[in-house]
């Protein structure tokens, strides 16, 4: 395989891995920018995967070919509502946000598997009949090299993830909503005195993180796993959290970090076929993605500044 071909197979593969992380990390960016730590991303993905699969299995007859799209949409809605639990606990009840996030992770897996047992009478669902399929974009895929790299064998959801990252960037840095969101995460009391409803902003942000986490989980389920079980989401949410921090709480940073993970992961697999890497023992390739991340952080990413009031409940009228 020539270099171009190798790249042509690595890029879509990396994006398959990255897309669910991008969605979820964008959710994390919303939540953390508003000042709410979201360690529950894993649980939100679990919920998304569960809902996406169950909806697809149940309503395939109704929605036909559109089912995957409807499913991820429904997964978004349900996960957003599920995230309300985190919102109520950490915003209204002033719970420690880390604690609440950990509970979200337990709860999502518990509910998902419990209901799977109730509804399917077994520990995992069937496989969905018609998941998302990767496609070649007509015309564009015919462009030499670029077409092969960027327009063949991608999922529509991967494009959606990239587009969404830019949308989120626009929302957070260009719109009044974004300005207010950031102010709430930096200095909630200042926001409050400017007439911004701090609680409402934070609720919205946490629910957005639920929606996006659900999107990430359902996209993973409907592109990669194809069913739901205890082993569908195992650590992807934590990788997404890592992408949020790695990306310095910036939507495009998170995008970059998730793609970085995707590439590192692909490289660990495709590497065995690359001339330079083929003699490297398997174990080094296996741990490479994680070691590379640490090296990248230590080497040139370094200190990242979190939103100032991240993790602190806002108590109106206190100082």
């Amino acid at each position, binding site marked *: 395989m020539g270099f171009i071909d190798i790249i042509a197979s690595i890029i879509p593969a990396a994006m398959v891995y990255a897309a669910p992380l991008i969605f979820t990390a964008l959710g994390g960016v919303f939540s953390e920018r508003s000042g709410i730590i979201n360690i529950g991303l894993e649980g939100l993905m679990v919920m998304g995967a569960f809902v996406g699969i169950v909806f697809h299995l149940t309503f395939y007859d109704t929605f036909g070919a559109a089912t995957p799209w409807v499913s991820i949409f429904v997964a978004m809605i349900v996960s957003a509502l599920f995230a309300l*639990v985190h919102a109520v*606990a*950490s915003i*209204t*009840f*002033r*719970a*420690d946000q*880390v*604690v*609440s996030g*950990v*509970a*979200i*992770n*337990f*709860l999502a*897996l*518990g*509910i998902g*598997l*419990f209901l799977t*047992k*109730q509804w399917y009478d077994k520990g995992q669902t069937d496989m969905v009949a018609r998941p998302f399929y990767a496609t070649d974009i007509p015309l564009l895929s015919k462009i030499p090299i670029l077409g092969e790299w960027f327009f063949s064998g991608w999922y529509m959801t991967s494009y959606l993830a990239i587009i969404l990252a830019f949308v989120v960037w626009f929302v957070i840095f260009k719109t009044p909503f974004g300005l207010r969101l950031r102010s709430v995460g930096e200095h909630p009391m200042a926001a409050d005195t400017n007439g911004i409803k701090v609680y409402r902003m934070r609720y919205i942000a946490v629910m957005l993180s639920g929606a996006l986490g659900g999107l990430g989980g359902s996209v993973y389920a409907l592109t990669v796993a194809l069913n739901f079980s205890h*082993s569908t989401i*195992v*650590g992807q949410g*934590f*990788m997404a*959290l*890592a992408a949020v*921090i*790695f990306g310095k709480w910036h939507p495009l940073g998170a995008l970059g970090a998730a793609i970085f993970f995707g590439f590192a992961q692909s490289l660990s697999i495709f590497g065995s076929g690359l001339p330079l890497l083929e003699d490297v023992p398997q*174990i080094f390739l*296996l*741990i490479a*993605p*994680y*070691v590379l*991340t*640490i090296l990248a*952080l*230590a080497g040139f*990413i*370094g*200190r*990242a500044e979190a939103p100032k009031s991240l993790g602190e409940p806002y108590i109106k009228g206190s100082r």
Partner: protein
Amino acid sequence: MLFSNRMINILIPIISVVLGLLSGAIIMLVFGYNPIEGYAALWNGAFGDSYFLGETLRQVTPYILSGLAVAFALRTGLLNIGVEGQVFVGWLASVAVGISFDLPMIIHLPLAILAAALAGAFWGFIPGILKAKLGVHEVIVTIMMNYIALYISNDIVRNVLTDGEDRTAEIAPSASLASEWLASMTYFSRLHYGLIVALFMALVMWFVLNKTTRGFELRSVGFNQNASKYAGMSVGKNIVLAMVISGAFAGLAGAMEGLGTFGYMNVKSGFTNIGFDGIAVALLGANMALGVVLAAFLFGTLKIGALNMPTEAGVPTELVEIVIALIIFFVASSYIIRWAFLRFKKEGK
């Protein structure tokens, strides 16, 4: 006064557990199970006879240590999500020492335990030093270190400790925490002397944090790094130390599995969850030594008891996951319980 602050602090976890169990009962009712049967099965599964009591205590042992690990780091302001990986390397190290030497027990066992603590400590040292020197966020590094631990441990089991096997040899009896006496008292449960190690470590954590100057520094750095620096403490050193100690606790949790429960290390297809559960244990225990012990006890009980629910009452074990999550929520939302108490108090007057 009807409820003193202290009383409320003690009552909150109890109320949370009760509320969590109540919610679980409601869920069982909704799905057509008999909650009384369900909880009876849970109880029997955890304490039904001395065998199950033994198993419950056995499960509590690593939870205490992984809980202490998370709690210790949190007290210094660090979120150690890497306990899972530290458990792995601790387990591996303890077994490696356990199978590789032929020594009298009085040396062999402590050596194996020490190896686990050191391995865990080293695994904590890396995120610690990166945080202290370069300001790299410990959460990402510890997440990454988990995967590295998993893959490296598997590789070492496969290629260093064995010749391509999935499982190491059994550790020498001289390195084992297992106890004929405890086993025979509990109908062959795997309860082992590790419980004593775990409880002792809880004591150590309490003592170090609350009674020593080092603990004073660690807590101070946890609350306010600037003031600590101003007061002449070395912030970086304390961060590294906190991660090292936290990792050592986690490594010991691994030793409990390696030297106590299993007696070997095998190739793992995924995480053990001892470390991740440790996060919940620590948080439930309010990051305090005694709290962690109690929370670990609760966790162990629920986890072991849950295994009996499907066979005895037909209730899926996942119900317990839900109950645990709800308990954590209720504890976390203690503000609202406190608030309700104050209202109650006011109106009671």
